[in-house]
């Protein structure tokens, strides 16, 4: 098979892109992950829990190792490892930890322990973790039907939860004390959100890899929050940005010899840089999105 090449004819290119079932699967999985990560990442960035998100993403390693050792089906290991880590991270924050210093030290500890557990599990299985590249940097080849359906189910559940708790979660994230006084269950939302983040990260790392998950989890949200002034507009922009990043990078990865992760991070960075340093977007486009 000759390597595919782009023709500058978008219709023909698109046809080529979707000619193979594996690319259709990749687009389906990538789109689901982008929508999910764009929405959940938006809250994560707002709540300043990026470090917690990073720690959850590194749980892909113990997750994959556990999957190998116990012969777990599919991505079950990922979901389990992220779920356990999320429960640990959601522990009641220290009362005297107003700057979040103790919390971040705890997150760092969880990360180290998680990686060590993964290493032990791997040693116990006497195995070699196949597809280490994919684990770390993501892969869009060989996405199975089942994987797409599990992703879709996880995404539907989480987006459904976000629709229900969206406004109180926003209130609790921005202004926890005022929200608590109005009867918003701030603490329950905190725990619930950590679990939601855990599942989202477990889902996303399957496509983006543990190290590059932030290209869809952090960058689109950070970009949107620099530009938009209304929460809804900001969240929609975050999702749209994540979807564009994934689509563009899948197309580029298909037509070029370079890996997917390179393109996702590049496009994510460019989007953020445009929002950060673009003179026009900062003042004018901000107003436009707001209106």
């Amino acid at each position, binding site marked *: 098979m000759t390597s595919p090449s782009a023709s500058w004819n978008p219709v023909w290119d698109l046809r080529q892109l979707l000619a193979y079932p594996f690319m259709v699967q990749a687009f389906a999985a990538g789109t689901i992950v982008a929508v999910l990560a764009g929405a959940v990442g938006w809250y994560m960035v707002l709540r300043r829990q990026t470090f917690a998100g990073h720690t959850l993403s590194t749980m892909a390693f113990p997750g994959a190792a556990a999957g190998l050792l116990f012969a777990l089906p599919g991505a079950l290991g990922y979901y389990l490892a992220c779920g356990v880590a999320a429960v640990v991270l959601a522990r009641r924050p220290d009362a005297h930890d107003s700057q979040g210093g103790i919390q971040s030290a705890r997150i760092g500890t969880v990360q180290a322990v998680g990686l060590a557990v993964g290493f032990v599990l791997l040693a116990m299985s006497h195995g070699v973790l196949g597809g280490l590249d994919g684990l770390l940097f993501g892969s869009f080849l060989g996405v199975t039907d089942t994987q797409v359906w599990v992703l879709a189910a996880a995404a539907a559940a989480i987006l459904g939860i976000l629709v229900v708790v969206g*406004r109180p979660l926003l209130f609790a994230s921005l*202004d926890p004390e*005022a929200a*608590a*006084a*109005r*009867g918003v269950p701030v603490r329950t939302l905190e725990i619930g959100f950590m679990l939601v983040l855990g599942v989202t990260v477990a889902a996303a790392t399957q496509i983006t890899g543990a190290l590059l998950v932030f290209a869809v989890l952090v960058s689109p949200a950070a970009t949107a*929050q620099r530009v938009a*002034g209304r*929460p809804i507009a900001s969240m929609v922009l975050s999702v749209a940005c994540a979807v564009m990043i994934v689509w563009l990078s899948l197309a580029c990865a298909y037509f070029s010899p370079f890996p997917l992760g390179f393109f996702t991070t590049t496009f994510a960075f460019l989007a953020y840089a445009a929002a950060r340093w673009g003179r026009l977007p900062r003042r004018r486009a901000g107003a436009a999105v707001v209106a």
Partner: protein
Amino acid sequence: MTAESGRVPPGAPVVELRDATVRVGRRVIWSDVSVAIAPGEFTAILGPNGAGKSTLLKVLLGMLALESGSARVLGAAPGVHRDAIGYLPQHRDLAAAGRIQGREIVRLGLTGAHWGIPVPIVGRRRRRDESGRIDEVLDLVDARAYADRPFGELSGGEQQRLLIAQAVVRHPALLILDEPLDSLDLPNQAAVVRLIREVCSAQNVAALLVAHDVNPLLPALDHVVYVANGRASQGPVREVITTANLSDLFGVPIEVLSTSDGRLVVVGQPEAPHHHGHRHEYQGRE
């Protein structure tokens, strides 16, 4: 869900504590406290750090239970009429709000606690009503001019006006403010006090606020609740704000002077604003 559910019958107190005692862990914060606040009254809670001023607010908000005695807020147990209380927490860092518009911060007070999202087409009318109410409170606090700017880019005084708008947007019957003058310069302190006074008169809202410095409040105050040494009591400004009383309360010499136009000035109080830096950190954990 409407504020009307929390309206008290005319003449009945908005807040009533009887022989109340609070214990946090093993420590009794204050005991046998009796306080009554009438509708539309402007009351300040004064006292040294760690005396339990914020604790008193927490009891009234239903976030802390009494050890003994009784508490009634808007005619019911604390926490029942949450929707009829506007609460302005102390020294908030809403830095996360960043580029979110000031108007959206006010909207949190109106619908932030609602579950679910508004239905796009059916909810249009309600959305218009919401926007109308938000414009109304923005006018009330005189913040219309900068309400569409990013919250994080506003000055401390502008942010405080928007947060007050957030607290009053649901037509509360009681406004509880924890150190609303903190980190504001003198002109802004005076303006915020005037604003709270106006809101109280215009909407017959009782306001209860904790303050470090009593001076900016004196022109507007009706009553003072002072908390010290495990006790709290209440009285009209002229009775409580006296040299003997305050010196005794804070344990240091304090003088209350009367100006030629009859206003009071408190001199030498330990809560002067220039020590702020350290104090908030402890104040937050009272």
